[in-house]
């Protein structure tokens, strides 16, 4: 069964002058378990809004969002929060690590909202995840003393610490240089696959998008499938023709 299904999702915001600004317009999207989907689009095209809706951080103003086939529209705030913590892991462009908390504390933080064994074993689990992203030796370092690439690896470990079924990554390489970004993205894709989590990545970077099973393009709030890329042989050059137009 489809894990996530957006059916004609719209999101509008009211403007101070009484008008209405559409951010997303009739978006349809399905994500199956374990799948990797990439969404590319210009800045301001509504990518983050779409991801926030997927992650139950935001609610659509129109359409239907099914999670495991269940409509999410009528869920109470408490249930939404719980589902968010259990089903999703988030990776942000700006890492959003908790300042002055060690890498281990950061990775363990989502488990503060878990129950039972998950909560009680949180430190050990955090260590395991840090090992998995190759930062086992830096568990006691605070984010302020980590490089951007390391910070994002901590964030990836944190996103995976509750074994989510979907990882939502909002421009995960956006604040990193090209090379580091590629490494981090490879790690993210691999770690998500290893954990059996679906991965929805939002990106500017076509090389990043190439790692995905399916690609979409968001343009002024409308989502359209992206034509198949050229054969993967052309990897290093971001000049592959059909993707060109998706670049901001």
């Amino acid at each position, binding site marked *: 069964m489809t894990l996530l299904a957006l059916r004609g999702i719209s999101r509008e915001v009211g403007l101070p002058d009484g008008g209405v600004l559409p951010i997303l317009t009739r978006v349809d999207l399905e994500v199956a378990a374990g799948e990797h989907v990439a969404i590319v689009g210009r800045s301001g095209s509504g990518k*983050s809004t779409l991801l926030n809706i997927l992650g139950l*951080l935001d609610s659509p103003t129109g359409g239907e969002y099914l999670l495991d086939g269940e409509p999410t529209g009528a869920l109470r*705030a408490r249930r939404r*929060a719980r589902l*968010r*913590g259990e089903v999703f892991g988030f990776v942000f462009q700006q890492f*959003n690590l908790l300042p002055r908390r060690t890498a281990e504390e950061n990775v363990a*933080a989502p488990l503060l*909202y878990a129950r039972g064994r998950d909560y*009680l074993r949180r430190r050990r689990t955090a260590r395991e995840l840090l090992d998995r992203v190759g930062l086992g030796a830096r568990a006691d370092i605070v984010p302020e003393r980590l490089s951007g690439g390391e910070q994002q690896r901590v964030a990836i470990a944190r996103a995976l610490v509750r074994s989510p079924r979907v990882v939502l990554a909002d421009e995960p390489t956006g604040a990193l240089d090209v090379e580091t970004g590629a490494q981090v993205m490879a790690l993210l894709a691999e770690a998500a696959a290893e954990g059996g989590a679906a991965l929805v990545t939002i990106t500017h970077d076509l090389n990043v998008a190439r790692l995905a099973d399916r690609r979409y393009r968001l343009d002024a709030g409308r989502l359209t499938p992206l034509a198949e890329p050229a054969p993967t042989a052309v990897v290093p050059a971001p000049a592959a023709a059909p993707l060109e137009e998706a670049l901001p």
Partner: protein
Amino acid sequence: MIPVLATLAEAWSEVRVHRARVVLSLVGVFLAVFAMTTVTALGLLVAQVQQEQGERMGGRSATIGVTAYDPQTGMPPDPQEWDAAVADLTERYGITTTASIGYEETRFRLPGGTQAVQTKRVSPSYGQLHRVEPIEGRWLREGDRDSLAPAVVVNEAFLAALGVPDLSARPTVVIGGGDPVRAVVVGVVREGYGEELLAYRVDRSAGPWDAPGVADPSAMAFGPSTLELWVRPEQADEVMAVVSHDLGLALGGVQVDAYRSDSQGLEETLGMLRLAIRGAGVVVLVLGGLGVLNIGLVTVRQRIREIGVRRSFGATSSRVFSAIMLESVCATFLAGLAAVALSVVLVRNLPLDQLLNSGIPLAETPAFPVAAAVEGLVAATAVGALAGLLPAVIAVRARVIDAIRF
């Protein structure tokens, strides 16, 4: 259980991480709790000391003093008649504790020569009624009536005049007069001003040195013997009324006066004092709380992003709320704890006898009042809860997507 633990862990980690800010915001609370606890503690100690002093003088609440004498001769009533009438009275009104007090001068042969010492002749129950706490040895007891050597309880000045440091050598002292007798010093009390010597002996004892039932006319020179009745405070007025009447009837022709002997009104005075002190403390505490609130409001804005991130972990509104609340409470509780600790150290090291008891050493140095300490902690915690409320509401209302947007 887990959510509670987890929320506590989260709050604690916040306090730890933002140590400098937390410490800064807590200075006000610390000072307020310190001042309030110290002043309350001192207030309670003053009250305790006052009460002890009052009880030693006039007996516990409610003590009714009864005096009786023949208006014609000024002599006390016949002891046997008197005892019978009193026994009848106490039985009728269910009065369980009574004590008699008479005053006399006893001539003690001390190393510096014979000295007339003001002596109270009391029943052993006097100790209970006046909460006498010997600092050494023991108080008088029923058995002392029958012992061959009279027992005396003396004050420290008496012991010094006797030339002995303490009771370890079982000191004795000779009571002079027509028929000298060697008395045993059984206890020491801390009483009297300066060099004044004081002694206690049992009242009409049955020993060979003091014929039973013989009233010493010279005793009257120091005031009439008094009977003290210990009754429940609400009983006091009724008992006073009937005592004069009933005893007067039973001992035809004898003048009987009954009066309230324990100090009253002290409670109210001290209550007012405590209330005023507490009021001042509360004002200071409110000011400290405003400081915490202010810093809490400033920092909650900076922390909106972090709260948004925690929302993405699945934090519910109630978790966000209680985490901020608990953080505030945790912090002020610790400040309160530190303040109370400092207050305890200070109060315990103050020369309380100099400050509270006009230089007379206190019979027992009162412990730091637990009530004041608990009150300080509760107040600090309450201030933390109040000051955390507004930031917590702001944190809950912050829109998550705005919080994590960059």
